[in-house]
């Protein structure tokens, strides 16, 4: 085991993927010499060359569009979108091309393309650098959407995403890039959870708290804090946002009878809405209260001096938990 930051764990995962499969390529803005603005690709171009770790022109549609062409030629491109708010120029290529080529070709074509997107707020950034656009991609059939929450998860999930024959939108919680944890980079991935499975982070009996990405740590901290009030919160990291691991979600909610979903993205039309609808449909007679959501407001992401108000923190998560006991 090695203690690594989440950023370094991703770096090690990418390195493994490049070593294990000569068809894996990394492409994006500043991913080469600079090693990416968050240093996730640090040193990879030096070791694997500029034909495999490619500094691209500054156009996101071009990055994803050419990745599609490379995938058609048999490559496994890993695209870096520098910031969440920069993915929209590539939206058309992702939604209309990448996600649909398997169906368009009746299964003749696979699109093993991974698109890494640093997401979320909390780093005091300017506009377009703190967004959580995952629901836009979850709504698009043909894509897998995942979010990693800690270094060990990041290390395994990035490799699984690259090995996956479907396109994967891979969200990285940018305010957790510097979080450190033990990661086993010597062993293989045999023991890793499958990419589409949710993970129980903390066991609990009173309420199920569903989260992903940057909110995993917040929710784990909330669960620890709630113990002093005698409340037992079960924290589940969804990991896969599309497809959802409904089996794990339903089993958990049937046990606890209460469910809160936490995410940074705006609450309206967000993943919490999808989870709430499905939980209500499948666990109706087990529920002691409505499914509640602790999420970003239905507003654009605010200027950073206000982001602490926007981001659901430990207290807002616990407030939602408390409210499930008032019905």
């Amino acid at each position, binding site marked *: 085991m090695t203690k690594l930051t989440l950023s370094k764990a991703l770096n090690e995962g990418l390195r493994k993927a490049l070593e294990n499969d000569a068809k894996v390529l990394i492409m994006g803005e500043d991913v080469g010499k600079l090693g990416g603005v968050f240093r996730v690709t640090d040193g990879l171009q030096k070791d694997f060359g500029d034909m495999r770790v490619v500094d691209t022109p500054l156009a996101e549609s071009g990055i994803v569009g050419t990745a599609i062409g490379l995938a058609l030629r048999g490559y496994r*491109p890993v695209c870096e979108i520098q910031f969440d708010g920069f993915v929209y120029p590539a939206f058309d290529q992702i939604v209309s*091309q990448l996600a649909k080529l398997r169906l368009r070709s009746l299964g003749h074509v696979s699109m093993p393309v991974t698109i890494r997107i640093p997401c979320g707020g909390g780093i005091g950034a300017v506009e377009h650098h703190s967004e959580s656009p995952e629901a836009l991609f979850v709504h698009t059939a043909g894509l897998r959407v995942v979010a990693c929450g800690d270094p060990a998860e990041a290390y395994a999930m990035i490799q699984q995403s690259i090995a996956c024959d479907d396109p994967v939108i891979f969200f990285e919680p940018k305010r957790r890039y510097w979080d450190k944890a033990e990661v086993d980079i010597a062993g293989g991935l045999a023991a890793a959870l499958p990419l589409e499975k949710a993970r129980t982070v903390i066991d609990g009996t009173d309420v199920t708290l569903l989260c992903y990405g940057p909110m995993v740590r917040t929710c784990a901290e909330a669960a620890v804090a709630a113990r002093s009030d005698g409340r037992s919160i079960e924290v589940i990291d969804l990991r896969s946002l599309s497809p959802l691991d409904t089996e794990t979600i339903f089993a958990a909610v049937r046990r606890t009878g209460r469910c809160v979903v936490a995410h940074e993205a705006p609450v309206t039309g967000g993943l919490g809405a999808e989870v709430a609808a499905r939980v209500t449909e499948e666990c109706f007679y087990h529920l002691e209260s409505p499914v509640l959501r602790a999420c970003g407001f239905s507003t654009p992401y605010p200027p950073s001096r206000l982001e602490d108000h926007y981001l659901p923190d430990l207290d807002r998560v616990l407030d939602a938990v408390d409210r499930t006991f008032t019905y």
Partner: protein
Amino acid sequence: MTVDADGAVTAAPGSPGLDGQQGSRAELIQLLTPEGERAEHSDYPLELSADEIKGLYRDLLLVRRIDTEAIALQRQGELGIWASLLGQEAAQVGSGRALGPRDMAFPTYREHGVAWCRGLDPMKLLELFRGVSHGGWDPAEHRFHLYTIVIGSQTLHATGYAMGIQRDGAVGEDGEAVIVYFGDGATSQGDVSEAFIWASVFNAPVVFFCQNNQWAISEPLERQSRIPLYQRARGFGFPGVRVDGNDVFACLAVTRKAMQAAREGQGPTLIEAFTYRMGAHTTTDDPTRYRLASELEAWKLKDPIERVKAYLVRTGSADLAFFEGVESEADQLGRRVRRACLEMPDPQPMAIFENVYAEPTSLLRSEREQYAAYLESFTVEEAGR
């Protein structure tokens, strides 16, 4: 070549210089005149045997027949829509026949002539326009990618594919190259400019083949560009050339040269095939609302098939029996297309859930089961009546 001079000539919207044939400095490569007379160009020497020319004539005539039949099928309600290639046969057959078996082609949705040259069964095209599939062919089989309907997106796919060729070390002697088709309207798309940039800075082996058919549905070329389209290449740092898109010889020669340059590692070329969309944008369109009949009449005189026929007759390369033979083959093809279209079965409802992911997700499995049970409930009801 300087953009300023041409820009000055062509700056005013509606300027006659824009079409490059009425006094502008835009050069048009032509090897066969509309009257069917052979022309020479020192940069594009072309030697074709009589049999090769007859082969091109046959291609042109057959793809036009597929097109005619498809329009009729749409009018009879058998196809949802059809995008006619009428008038663009030479651009497509000339460029399509310039490709080697290992080259890869990326079409838009009107490249029925290129599909024909690549050996794709026309039925696959009808499947798409009938609504049976979104294409469904294997791009690797004929090295002909799926039709891309969103304008210009495929230029990036082609460029990425060409970057893959580079990474496979397949540039140089015996190299491979890519050709990508798009129209004059697509040149306004950001993706096309991005593809030009990528291809240029990575020196990718890709040929950009723009069929300038003068119209993007109802919008004339001057709404897309103030300069001749081929001249855009200069700004991106690679050569551009304008070819008579109704001249199958010139399209063949110019594309051959550009593809060879790409295969050898000399990077991209933009070819602007100057042609005309003789029909509507698609069968849902009504061009009488936005363009003059006189324009169509003028272009009819430049028909891409008539000039080859005139050349074959003039040179005594083909006799009446040849022309009758091709006509008869076209009739047979038309009948085959019609019959196959009418006999084409609709897909099964459960096909909706297939080919979304490599393996169906549990969510899709459950939606599929639920919908199957729902459909089954009607059968049970019927049986119970």
